[in-house]
């Protein structure tokens, strides 16, 4: 077979392979030609087939079953790359508001203060988070979660050892796969030296805790920290904060356990 015939024959078999119509003999021939040094493969034929198929099918609007759509969206969680370190800085008024004696959850007050902040063009110093596809500040996102989630679980943190004075709460929604920690009295950390890391204990999923994200405490007072779980959490039984090396760790040795919030 000369080069021209070889190319034509391989191209035809390759087209058959892409169309899924090679018979057993042709498969053997295709495999044989594939080993030939003259063989140069090219994905463009496969792209052309996909483009033709997509071209015809896009004119037809197909409805995906609702349950499947939800499964696909839920499946995203496994492939989300953990977000970069969330540095939480708390403006002065927010720290005051966040103090335990103030009704932090009063939505109207929050709305007024947020509006005031925007009016005064005070640039937000808190890294925004994405909640339900919308980018917003952690406190706003937390407030929205509290309004929309009907399955909200709330658990109190208890500080351990040197961190005994810290207080805090964690809220979590299985349905929304979203949660926030409100932490008060955690020591400020130097991110270049050590960072806080949250772990979610979900025995139904795995005996090993799930990474809930690395975070910093850049100022004294109360901070709202979003939970960043890269995988789906179904029934968290405990939330544990540890102190780790910068960037966090994949598996914690739990040498410094800062606080624990255990579901009752």
């Amino acid at each position, binding site marked *: 077979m000369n080069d021209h015939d070889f190319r034509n024959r391989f191209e*035809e078999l390759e087209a058959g392979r892409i169309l899924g119509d090679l018979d057993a003999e042709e498969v053997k021939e295709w495999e044989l030609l594939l080993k030939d040094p003259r063989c140069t493969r090219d*994905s463009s034929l496969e*792209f052309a087939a*996909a483009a*033709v*198929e997509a071209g015809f099918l896009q004119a037809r609007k197909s409805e*995906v079953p609702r349950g499947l759509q939800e499964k*696909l969206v839920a499946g995203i969680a496994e492939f989300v790359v953990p977000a970069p370190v969330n540095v939480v800085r708390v403006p002065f008024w927010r720290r005051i508001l966040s103090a335990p004696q103030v009704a932090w959850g009063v939505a109207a007050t929050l709305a007024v203060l947020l509006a005031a902040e925007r009016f005064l063009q005070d640039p937000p110093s808190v890294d925004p988070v994405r909640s339900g596809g919308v980018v917003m500040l952690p406190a706003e996102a937390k407030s929205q979660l509290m309004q929309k989630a009907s399955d909200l679980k709330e658990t109190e943190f208890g500080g351990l050892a040197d961190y005994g004075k810290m207080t805090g709460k964690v809220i979590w929604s299985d349905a929304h796969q979203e949660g926030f920690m409100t932490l008060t009295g955690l020591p400020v950390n130097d991110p270049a030296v050590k960072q806080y890391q949250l772990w979610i204990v979900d025995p139904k999923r795995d005996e090993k805790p799930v990474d809930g994200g690395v975070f910093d405490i850049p100022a004294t007072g109360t901070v709202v920290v979003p939970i960043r779980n890269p995988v789906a959490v179904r029934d968290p039984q405990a939330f544990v904060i540890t102190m780790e090396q910068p960037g966090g760790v994949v598996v914690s040795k739990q040498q410094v356990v800062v606080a624990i919030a255990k579901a009752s």
Partner: protein
Amino acid sequence: MQECITKYSGLVWSIACRYVKNQTCVEDVVQEVFTDLWKCAKRYDPAIASESTFIGMLARRRAIDFVRKESRRPQLEPLPEGEFQGHFSSEPTTVIRCESGDVMEAVKVLPEETRQIFFLHFDEGMTHPEISEKTGLPLGTVKTRLRRGLIEVRRKLRLDGGGDAAQPSNSINS
């Protein structure tokens, strides 16, 4: 990613339904396609293929792979399964235009008899034997015309043929 699901799940579903007849299996295939997509999204290059073409290719591969595996059971015939394992075993050396208008233009200029087979296969979703029965053409002729038609469409879509490709949008790895 969610936007991508909203935009392309219908296309993936349609392609999977075309090849796979059992609805539960279709759902499995659709989920596998999106798993493939998230795994290889970083390798998507909008200069080489549009999003719909790229996702369509993943869907076709998964669906055809599924059918081959199913049909292999009774036949016990070894098929080049490994070929379908990696998605980019060969890098594209020829960039083609993938926009819908260009593609349909390329199909339009195929010979009438080939165009008819293309329509029955890609639009109506008919298998080769079904096309053969409907048109009265021998099965071998249907196969050959489809294969040669595809090669011809690729030739017409080649950028080195003089066309300019519009840069498609990218919601896959954004």
